[in-house]
Structure formats: C-alpha cells, structure tokens
C-alpha cells in the first residue's frame, strides 16, 4: 500500500500548565494515494489540529506526521510544494475579484503573470465561475466562495489536497455544488483528506473514514464497514397510536431477536437491529398483528452513519469528557 499521508502517535497540546489541553492524544492515520479519506468527529476532536500540523502550520508536540514527504516539520517548504490546504473559512481576498484572487495565488506559486492568468481562466471555467470571475468575492454566495477557494487550492495541481470542513455553513445547494467539485477532483489521482462533522458528507465523498474523538482515532473503515459495526440492518416500525409505542417496542424487540428496540416518541418510531432480514420482517409483521398494534409503516433499512457515529462516540456533538474506548471497525487495521 502506498501511503500519501502517514500519521503515527501524533500529539499536540495547546496552552501550558493548568490550561493545557491536549488537542491530539496519540493520533494514527494512514491515507492511501489517490483516495478520498474522511476524518469525522465532533468539535474539539482534533480534526483541524491534525490538518494544520500536516500542512504544516504548527509543529507537532510529539509523534510523526508525514504528508507529501518525509519529516514535514523539518522541511516544510518541500511539503508545501505538494499540497494545498482549504481551511474552514474561504481564505480569499474579499476585495479582489475571483479572477484576481486566482492570479494572486498563481503568482505566489510562481506561475508568472501570463501563466497565472491562463490558469485562473481554466479554473474559473472548470468550477463554473467564468461568468462571475470579474466580481469581487464580497459579492459571492457561500457556495461560490467555496468553489473559488477550491480553485485557489488547485492553482498548481497539488498531490494532496486538505479540505477542512469544506461545507460548514453552506446551504444545501452550496453543499451540493462543493460536493460535485470535490468529486471532479478524485478522478485525477489527487489524494484528498477531508475533515467533516457531517456524516452524510463523509458517506458521499470518502473512500475510507476515520472517526476521531478526544484527539484519537476511535474507529476506521469504509462507510459500509462503520455502519455494519453498529449491527447491520434495522427494522423500523411507525405505529399509528403513540400510546402503543412501548408495547410495540417489546414486540418488535422480541420478533427481531434484538435485546432491545429503541423508540423515538416524536416520530412514533420503533427501531431494532436485525440479523436475518426477511425472516425478521415477516416475524415483526405477524407479531404486531397478533398483539393488535396498528402499524403505519414497516421498513428494513441499513443503519445511517449517524447511528454508527452515535454508537462509537456515545454522542453526536461536543468535545470528549473522557476518552472513549478504542474500537476499530473491521477493515484494514491501523498498524
């Protein structure tokens, strides 16, 4: 396996003394060349810190972080030639036009005046900004900014592209625009490291996903593997009468041979993991009928990444209180 990014036992603490807060607490991460790797975790999990050390902005407090070449901390310029970083906020000059921004970054990357202008034109075309390239960035929508930001990262084709929460704060349309733009990159053999809080985003874009919590990796695998780790398929039952929810939960739990079924009173939903899909479905229908519980909807479905995430971290958002037990979903093992 050829690794484009290799992180071993990476540590970084911000602040000193009592205020010291470990942002990274022994992170391991391996990203294969030419893949999109999702790094998923709540705020404070260490995603951004890891990206910044790899790019390389601050020095690591310990361990190894290599992206684009050995020993990034010692030879940051060598690394900087090969990567591009897109931070959480579109890092653009608001006063300049889209085209002027791309030309500025092209010149800084030493494409020369004519080269930078030509490249700016190509990129505006490629990211659907040709018509708005002359407008100041100030006037751009969130999605347009992000696309321009992406284009700015590609002024010289990087070997590794770091996307740090590329769709945070975008509306659904902007998000779709950015997703399409990211997808268009992966065909070209670029390695992409993508951090996100959005499970759907990792699900949509990433070949493999590492789940971070408390500055460590707590799980890794493909989206399917992570979902399977939660317990495979589930049966969902929506009952007509909310008063029957608890009764339905015990019936469905029994029928699905699950230790317990979860309920969501707001949606009048009962959900339980199943092993044998069709048998469990038939059994559930029969058992509900026998118990006289009226169901509005019964469906089999794969677990969502949300459930996997909740299962792994025990929460959906917020920083870690205590380190979660390390679990590694099946797939390629870390070491």
């Amino acid at each position, binding site marked *: 396996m050829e*690794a484009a990014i*290799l992180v071993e036992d990476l540590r970084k603490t911000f602040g000193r003394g009592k205020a010291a807060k470990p942002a990274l607490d022994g992170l391991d991460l391996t990203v294969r060349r030419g893949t999109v790797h999702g790094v998923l975790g709540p705020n404070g999990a260490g995603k951004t810190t890891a990206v910044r050390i790899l790019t390389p*902005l601050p020095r690591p407090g310990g361990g190894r972080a290599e992206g684009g070449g050995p020993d990034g901390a010692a030879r940051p*310029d060598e690394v900087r*030639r*090969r990567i591009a*970083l897109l931070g959480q906020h579109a*890092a653009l000059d608001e006063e300049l036009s889209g085209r002027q921004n791309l030309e500025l970054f092209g*010149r*800084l990357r030493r494409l020369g005046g004519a080269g930078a202008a030509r490249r700016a034109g190509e990129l505006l075309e490629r990211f659907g900004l040709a018509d708005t390239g002359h407008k100041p960035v100030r006037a751009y929508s969130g999605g347009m900014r992000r696309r321009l930001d992406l284009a700015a990262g590609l002024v010289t084709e990087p070997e590794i592209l770091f996307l740090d929460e590329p769709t945070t704060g975008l509306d659904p349309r902007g998000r779709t625009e950015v997703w399409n733009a990211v997808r268009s990159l992966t065909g070209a053999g670029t390695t992409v490291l993508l951090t996100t809080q959005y499970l759907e985003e990792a699900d949509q874009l990433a070949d493999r996903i590492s789940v971070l919590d408390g500055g460590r990796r707590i799980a890794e695998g493909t989206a399917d593997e992570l979902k399977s780790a939660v317990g495979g398929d589930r049966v969902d039952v929506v009952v007509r009468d909310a008063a029957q929810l608890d009764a339905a939960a015990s019936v469905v739990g029994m029928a699905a041979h699950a230790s317990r079924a979860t309920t969501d009173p707001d949606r009048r939903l009962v959900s339980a993991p199943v092993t044998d899909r069709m048998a469990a479905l038939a059994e559930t229908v029969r058992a509900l009928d026998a118990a006289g519980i009226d169901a509005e909807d019964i469906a089999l479905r794969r677990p969502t990444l949300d459930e996997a995430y909740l299962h792994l971290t025990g929460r959906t958002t917020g920083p870690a209180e205590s380190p979660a037990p390390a679990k590694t979903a099946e797939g390629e093992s870390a070491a």
Partner: protein
Amino acid sequence: MTAHATTTRSTATRPTATHSMADALPAALTMPRRGFAHWARRPGQFAVGLAFPVMMLVMFAYFLGGGMAVEGGGDYTEFLVPGMLALTMAFGLEATMIELTQDINRGVLDRFRSMPIARSAILVGRSLLDMLGSVVSLLVMLGAGWAIGWRWHGTAAEAAAAIGLLLLLRFAMLWAGILLALVARRPESVQAVQILVWPVAFLSNAFTSPDTMPDWMGAVAEWNPMSATAGAIRELFGNPGWGGDSWAVEHSVALAVAWPLVLLAVLVPLAVRRYARLSD
C-alpha cells in the same frame, strides 16, 4: 509503509528547501500588486485615508493655530507642518495593522503560509506596499502644507534628507504595526491601538513645545521617537522649532536616525519570529 509522495511536478525544476532573497522577491512583489488592486477597487477608502491627515492639518492650522505662539515669533503653520508629517508617518501603523489583522482573520495569511514561499516574503511585501502608500500620503501632505503656506528654506539635499527621515520613521512604525497585528490577530483590537496612538502622538513636540508640559511629560515628549523626527525635519527644512537645550533637542537629527533603527532592530526579528509561530 513509509512511502511518500515522490512525483514532483513542481519540484523538478526548482531548488528545494532554503530560499534566497532573490527567491523571495517575486512573491514579495506580488503583495504591492495586490494592494494596488485594492486601491483600484476601493478608491473612496484610499482617498479618505489620504484626506484624514490633511483634515487634521487644516484643523490644527486654522482652528487652533491662531491661539498658538511659536517661540521667537515664528509662523505656527511653518512649525506645524513638519509635526503633522511626522504624525502622519507614525499613524501609518494603524493602516498596516488593519490590513494584516484582516488577512489573519480571513485565513488569507494561513493560505500564504501554507504556500512554498519564503517566510519573509509576505511581511516584506506588506512593508513594500505600505511604504509605497506612505510615499503617496507624504506627497499629498507636502502639497497640502504648501497650500496653507508652509515652505522649506534649506537646500534640496536637506529636504531630501528630511523626507528620508520621515520614511524611515514610517518604516519602523510599519513593523510595529505588523508585530501588533500578529500578536493581537483580531481586527477589533485595532480600535484599542487607534485610541492609544493619540496620547502617544500628542506627548510629543508635534503640536506644541514639551517645555509647556509638566516636567516628566515634557521629558517623555522630548524623547518620543516622533519628536526626534519632527525636530530633525524642522531643522532640515529650515522651519522654526522649539528652543530648549536638552541633549534630545540638540541632537534631534542623530536621534531621528537612531530611534527608527533601534526600533527596527527589535521589531523585525520579533515580527518574523511571531509570524513563523503564528499557529503554534
């Protein structure tokens, strides 16, 4: 396991690692280009920046000037203009700080930092741009001074030396602005600095004689780097200055050279160091 990126699209034709000054220069020169584009986009903002010190000059010359008497009976306008020139250079610190904190805040500086360009290039580029802006501002102020009756009475060489001293002061204040921006980071912090520059500016000989202030304040005012420059250029332009026999007054030209150089010797290494460690 430890395989790394080995395809080198961009490194093939370029030396790796260290940067020479020649290497940094194209990147540094890109910054003034960016600044010109800003000026072109926001001509109004640029014009207001130029007009502000002119307005101050007019206010002090006409609103307050009537009540001011210069020792030895000199013309207050002749006295005031060099002081305002020095003040304009010192206040340039704010403009530098505003621009840089905005770049930090928007992540533009991080993007620059993540590029393979010499560490010094961005800051040197910033200082180049601001120096060009200062030259324009200085020319406008000289023109405004001329219009309200200020003249220089020395030789052309002395006038050139005076302008050189003003730009030297500006260069030192510019690096103070860079350092403050890198330390404070947030654009809101500029406001505090904008307020604090006023007492520093007035605790000088720009508007009045330090002799008229309480003793300790007068002493501070005499040793203020801005006073040194103002005193020195009054001498070089042949404009009236305050008397006084302190060492600082007698050696204002030497001080006007020494002060900015000392400030630069301290500020530049601190700023470059701070820039390198911005995100640690």
